[in-house]
């Protein structure tokens, strides 16, 4: 069995784990990070994409609002390339209580948010699709944040400081000697081989799965997965994030993320975080809710639906255990040594994507103390790879670049403007890409045609380039297309239904996908 030693073993390659890896590596620790799948495929790859201004929490949870406001400021400084500075609006729709708007404004100011009330006429002029019947509007510092870009920048940064990162390595066993956790055994999900890592400290950053991972060490973490549904609309209906100004509820935010507008979300307790089914009822609930912010929302082309699970920690977990540090209202670092008498294991639970840096700082503060390697946290000021120029990502970037592409570099994904050169660059970075990993890295197949016109091109090119054998290319294509169809099944009406029809004709009629040779 392949075996090595590391200072910190981080389990989970979502925003939290990647943040912990970056922070630890900057403090001079040797880090190994593993995920059972590709990175950013857990909740972090299935979230809403909002870089919170804090507005959502201002009235009900001022502590979280304050955290969001300050972390938002920091991330804009250190991770500009992963953020689009869309700005945000909180608007009182005809169904929202105007008295709430006053409370909201006061609370937002108290939480240190930058906020400005704008005349309704100005808001509607800036956002022509916004409901003209809104009665108040507030401009805030919301943005959108790209999970793939952010997590890969954090991991690249960590690797630059010596970290080892392993996708598709599932923790199957936590090594425990007596009351001490000493490492873990991972199974490579593609080859079936096992690796053993001895660690000075294990950080359980498995999000909604952290209860399962803690269980492997014989500890209990009562994380309760809360499922939320989101629907992506084919194009941007607004430039800014649109929020309803009311007590947070379902389907009250529309976020412009890359080329799409995403409406969300819901919150239903589920037993299994891998339960990602979205019911037609939930989808309709979202589509109807959008109407209040953007009249005509219902008629827009819904592109895809998905869900993710919040790693929620009930109150009893956050405040009870002896020795737990309730570092924040929204996330908790569980020191299993003080809590359960099991040394060498720390669980970070709860939180948000927006506060990933703070969550990592709080976690690694505990880790360095345990390891006796105390060092200052540097993530407040250290700029992530790719963000050195401090230019925010902008939706037009790809379009602008595509204009200057040489003619011998054809587009392979027309919807998301991915060229052959982009594909070559990405596959050269790491062996063993699955089509779905390439999608996450490049957005191939995430546009209106949902892979109808690009999936076979990518599979064919990877085959031609010798990366896939024939059978491999065929089954990769089949798997990819079926996965895409799963996401459009419940929204197949109107324009998307016509697209799906055409895609099916292409894959079933032209390629006979079901019967491609193995």
């Amino acid at each position, binding site marked *: 069995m392949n075996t090595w030693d590391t200072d910190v073993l981080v389990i989970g390659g979502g925003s939290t784990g990647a943040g912990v890896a970056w922070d630890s590596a900057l403090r001079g620790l040797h880090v190994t990070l593993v995920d059972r799948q590709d990175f950013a495929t857990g909740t972090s790859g299935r979230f809403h994409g909002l870089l919170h201004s804090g507005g959502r929490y201002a009235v009900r949870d001022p502590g979280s609002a304050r955290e969001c406001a300050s972390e938002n400021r920091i991330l804009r400084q250190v991770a500009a390339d992963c953020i689009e500075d869309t700005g945000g609006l909180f608007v009182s729709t005809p169904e929202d209580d105007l008295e709430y708007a006053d409370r909201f404004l006061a609370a937002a100011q108290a939480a240190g948010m930058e906020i400005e009330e704008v005349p309704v006429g100005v808001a509607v002029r800036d956002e*022509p*699709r916004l409901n003209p019947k809104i009665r108040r509007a507030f401009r805030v510092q919301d943005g959108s944040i790209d999970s793939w870009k952010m997590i890969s920048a954090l991991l690249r940064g960590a690797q630059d400081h010596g970290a080892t990162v392993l996708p598709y390595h599932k923790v199957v066993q936590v090594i425990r000697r007596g009351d001490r956790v000493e490492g873990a055994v991972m199974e490579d999900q593609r080859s079936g081989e096992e690796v053993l890592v001895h660690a000075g400290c294990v950080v359980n950053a498995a999000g909604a799965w952290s209860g399962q991972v803690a269980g492997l060490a014989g500890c209990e973490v009562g994380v309760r997965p809360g499922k939320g549904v989101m629907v992506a609309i*084919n*194009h*941007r209906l607004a*430039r800014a994030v649109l929020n309803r100004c009311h007590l947070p509820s379902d389907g009250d935010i529309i976020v412009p993320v890359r*080329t799409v507008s995403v409406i969300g979300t819901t919150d239903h307790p589920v037993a299994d975080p891998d339960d990602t089914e979205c019911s037609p009822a939930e989808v309709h609930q979202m589509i109807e809710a959008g109407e209040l912010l953007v009249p*005509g929302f219902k*008629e*827009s*082309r819904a592109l895809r639906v998905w869900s993710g699970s919040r790693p929620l920690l009930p109150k009893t977990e956050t405040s009870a255990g002896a020795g737990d540090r309730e570092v924040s209202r929204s996330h908790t670092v569980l020191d299993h040594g003080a809590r359960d008498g099991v040394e060498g294991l720390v669980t970070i639970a709860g939180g948000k994507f927006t506060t990933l840096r703070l969550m990592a700082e709080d976690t690694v503060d505990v880790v360095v103390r345990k390891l006796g390697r105390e060092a200052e946290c540097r993530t407040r000021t250290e700029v992530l790879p790719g963000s050195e120029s401090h230019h925010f990502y*902008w*939706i*037009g*970037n*790809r*379009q*602008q670049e*595509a*204009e200057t592409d040489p*003619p011998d570099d054809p587009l392979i994904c*027309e*919807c998301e*403007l991915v060229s052959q050169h982009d594909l070559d660059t990405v596959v050269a970075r790491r062996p063993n890409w699955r089509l779905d990993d390439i999608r996450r890295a490049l957005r191939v197949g995430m*546009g*209106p*045609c949902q892979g*109808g*016109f690009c999936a076979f091109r990518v599979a064919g090119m990877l085959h031609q380039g010798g990366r896939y054998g024939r059978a491999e290319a065929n089954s990769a294509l089949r798997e990819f297309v079926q996965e895409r169809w799963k996401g459009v099944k419940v929204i197949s009406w109107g*324009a998307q239904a*016509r*697209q799906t029809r*055409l895609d099916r004709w292409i894959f079933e009629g032209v390629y006979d996908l079901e019967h491609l040779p193995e």
Partner: protein
Amino acid sequence: MTAVVWGAEAWAEVRSSLDRCIKCTVCETACPVAAVTELFPGPKTVGPQAERFRTGDHSPDLSVDYCSGCGICSRVCPQEVRIAELNSRARAELKRERGAPLRDQLVARPGLLGRAGRPVAPLFNWAMANPVIRWAGERTLGIHHKAPVPRSTTRTFSYWVGHHAGAKSARRVVYFHGCSTQWYEPHIGQKVTAILEHNGYQVVIPKQDCCGLPLQSNGLFPAARGAVTRLARQLVPGGTDDLPVISSSTSCGLMLKREAREILGADSPELRSVSQRTYDIFEFLLELHHRGELRTDFKPVPLTVAYHAPCQQQNQLIGKPALGILRLIPGLRLVELDRSCCGIAGTYGVKREKYEIAMRVGEPLFADIQAEGPDLVACDSETCRWQISAATGATSVHPLEILHRAYGGS
């Protein structure tokens, strides 16, 4: 059918049409510009696809400027994506942001050019025909030295109207003549008036300014919106709100019928009303004929006439009504030129960087004309006529000039 919406809502409707694109590529195969140059990636690419990357704050793409606005893509798209309209908007944003070059400002104001030229028309025409001056024009203004440019006239159409004692009748129409008739081709307006009067109509010709279309196609939207709403007010003389408004310029008619609403997002009560009542001259005459009201006291016209239906008229979605009328004329041998675009597309083909493209777009049409060798080429659009004559040396006329001759005019 959903209700017709105006103003900002009309543009929202056009923009959301991008959602209907299923990537079928039909538009790409029909675009005459993409077929002749690599500088233009094609309607699907710059239309529904690129629109997803535009936020309205800052234009990411420049190649959309090579779209000529001919509208063929929008007509062929099986999903009714408003591709050409999306492109028009995107071009406008581009120019608003970067400032339209002087040349665009100039070709966009035919009145200005016409006015500047008029008092010294012979001199102006000489200058426009003089290669040295045209070269200088290309260097300083970016108007291609070979591009067709209209000849200015010493007497405007309004001058003629002022001296014309029109017949009184209970049946009245408003005539919207457009700038080209006013400044360059007043004889067109005279013939329209004669044809309508011959059919028993009183022709009301109010004082009128530019419809704003050239401003629009060069991205100067606020000015264009102002122009078209002013024009609509001028076209309801004495508050008339039920008279047909007859247009003899295809592009100007299209502006009133569709583009003011769909591209400019303009809106006013007069505009809504005028837009509904605007007819292409031949559309109007063909309706008369269908009702049995068109006079058919035609003299034979023993000529071979090749007819080209211009894009801007095709975009009115009225078919080719001129063919229906010209066919009635005895002795006339009518050849339908079944080609899409002559290349000029308003002022597109006169621009330095687009002249060659426009000429290549028009090549199949020019070749057909040369092969046919007709006595006359008939085309409803003035800029297309100038382009066709410049490219082929053929004499080109408005089809109503042929009708006018059949009615005994000279």
